[in-house]
């Protein structure tokens, strides 16, 4: 006698603790096995691109803050660099150094949320609390510098909104010294935890070739073993002056490109970011952070695509200028947008409980997916 089977469609979200925001996943299941995942997005759509066309160039910066709200500094970074490329503005050295330091601090803060909530998704509560406690120190540094804890509007076209305060260098060094040992603590708590490895190793494997074709970038791509980091491969700002490594997934506890690898790449990147901060913090030259800020931002007619290595992957800004003070088109290539589009391919054939692990390992933020 043969049993008749049929596919079942199950909704996950829009309100669900492990969707990291308002996201609905349509799971096509046969028993517990996932046949397909269809994400439904747009719940947070705020017409960023339409708004941008009605704003002047500097007015768009606060909107970029609100895309990936866990890495606002980096969204500013990519946007202002794109405009500067279009207008061919020379940036003072001091500004470049401060931007890199802020960018790397932001990367650490973003990875902390990614790692903490990932543990939370899989049932480990303690690392989440520890990481949020430490992330608070970075947010305090930002707050002391520009007054905002999450949405900074800190980087301006040609400069910065505020100079760093006199205590910034000392406090940043203190943070670096404080944070380094907590990475070891985190490894003991979560990374090499038997239960955590059982949940993540050999789950959601994405081979290198497929990862490139699916458009995965950042830690997700490097987790698949591709040594590709825009800071090294397509250097922008002053990243070519620093000595750091690109960690890639090696399949230490499972297969290359599984969830654990994507997670572990982020852990290793914490250390690399600390290294960059350590090198940059002692070299900040003197200068005026507003000396190159143009009075009127009016780029020449033309278009530019500029991409930076945001904490979640390749953040690209495609900007078309028609020679007026308003952009004719701003298109954002958000890293999470492309990462989430790949989930159907990655999750195929795994169990329904693994979908949570796979989704968490991709580290998405719905703010930049829906824009």
């Amino acid at each position, binding site marked *: 006698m043969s049993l008749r089977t049929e596919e079942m469609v199950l909704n996950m979200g829009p309100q669900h603790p492990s969707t990291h925001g308002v996201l609905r996943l349509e799971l096509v299941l046969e028993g517990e096995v996932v046949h397909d995942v269809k994400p439904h*997005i*747009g719940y947070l*759509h705020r*017409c960023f*691109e*339409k708004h941008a*066309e009605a704003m002047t160039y500097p007015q768009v910066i606060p909107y970029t803050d609100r895309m990936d709200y866990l890495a606002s500094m980096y969204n500013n970074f990519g946007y202002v660099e794109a405009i500067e*490329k*279009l207008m*061919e503005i020379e940036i003072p050295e001091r500004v470049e150094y401060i931007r890199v330091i802020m960018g790397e601090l932001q990367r650490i803060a973003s990875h902390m949320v990614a790692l903490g909530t990932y543990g939370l998704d899989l049932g480990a509560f303690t690392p989440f609390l520890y990481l949020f406690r430490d992330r608070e120190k970075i947010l305090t540094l930002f707050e002391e510098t520009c007054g905002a804890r999450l949405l900074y509007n800190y980087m301006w076209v040609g400069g910065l909104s505020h100079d760093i305060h006199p205590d910034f260098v000392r406090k940043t060094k203190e943070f670096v010294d404080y944070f380094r040992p907590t990475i070891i603590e985190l490894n003991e708590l979560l990374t090499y935890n038997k239960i955590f490895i059982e949940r993540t190793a050999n789950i959601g494997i994405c081979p290198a070739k497929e990862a*490139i*074709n*699916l*458009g995965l970038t950042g830690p997700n791509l490097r987790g698949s073993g*591709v040594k*590709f980091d825009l800071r090294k*491969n397509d250097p922008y700002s002053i990243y070519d002056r620093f000595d750091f490594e690109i960690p890639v997934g090696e399949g230490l506890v499972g297969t290359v490109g599984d969830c654990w690898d994507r997670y572990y790449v982020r852990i290793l990147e914490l250390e690399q970011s600390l290294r960059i901060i350590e090198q940059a913090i002692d070299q900040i030259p003197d200068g005026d952070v507003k000396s190159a800020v143009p009075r009127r931002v009016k780029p*020449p*007619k*033309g*278009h*530019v*695509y500029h*991409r930076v290595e945001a904490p979640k992957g*390749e953040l*690209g800004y*495609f900007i*078309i200028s*028609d020679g007026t003070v308003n952009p*004719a*088109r701003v*298109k954002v*290539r958000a890293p999470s*947008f*492309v990462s989430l*589009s*790949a989930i159907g*391919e990655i999750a195929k054939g795994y169990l329904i409980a693994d979908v949570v692990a796979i989704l968490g390992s991709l580290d998405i933020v719905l703010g930049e997916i*829906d*824009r």
Partner: protein
Amino acid sequence: MKSPEEIFEILKAEFQDAVVEIDSELPVEPIIIVDPLAINKIAQFLRVNEDLQFDSLMNLSGVDDANGEKITEEDGTVTIKGGTFSVYYHLHSTTIDHKVVLRVITDKNKPEVESVDPVWKASTWHEREAYDMYGIIFLNHPDLRRILLPDDWDGYPLRKDYENPEYYDGMKVPY
């Protein structure tokens, strides 16, 4: 590594009329303009060719070129007639490390572009977004639905002549 001019020569030799011209006047990046109905074949060629190996689609973006003819009616309302949409493709090769920008131009009244989904799976959602925002039809796309807006939304918001709707689902929208 190949410059955009060299890539243009290679494409021109392979596809003749389907590759229209190279526009290097604009600042920052030169663009190769190609035929919207041949883009899938050109994309496939760009990906598999030994000397090019464009394995990564960085970005795909729909654009309203805002070049239609403006007609002012007697009562002062302005309507735009004609004009074109463009789709920009930003490609990168992770193995050879060179980049190129492609552009297709399609008529606003019948915006049809071949999908590059079979070549780069990264394009699936980008194309859905361009469809959602501009109404550009991607031929042979596996799943061309709205993505950010609700399924029952009227019109295509990023078109330059889009007007904010007064009603949504019969409800008045306050502004």
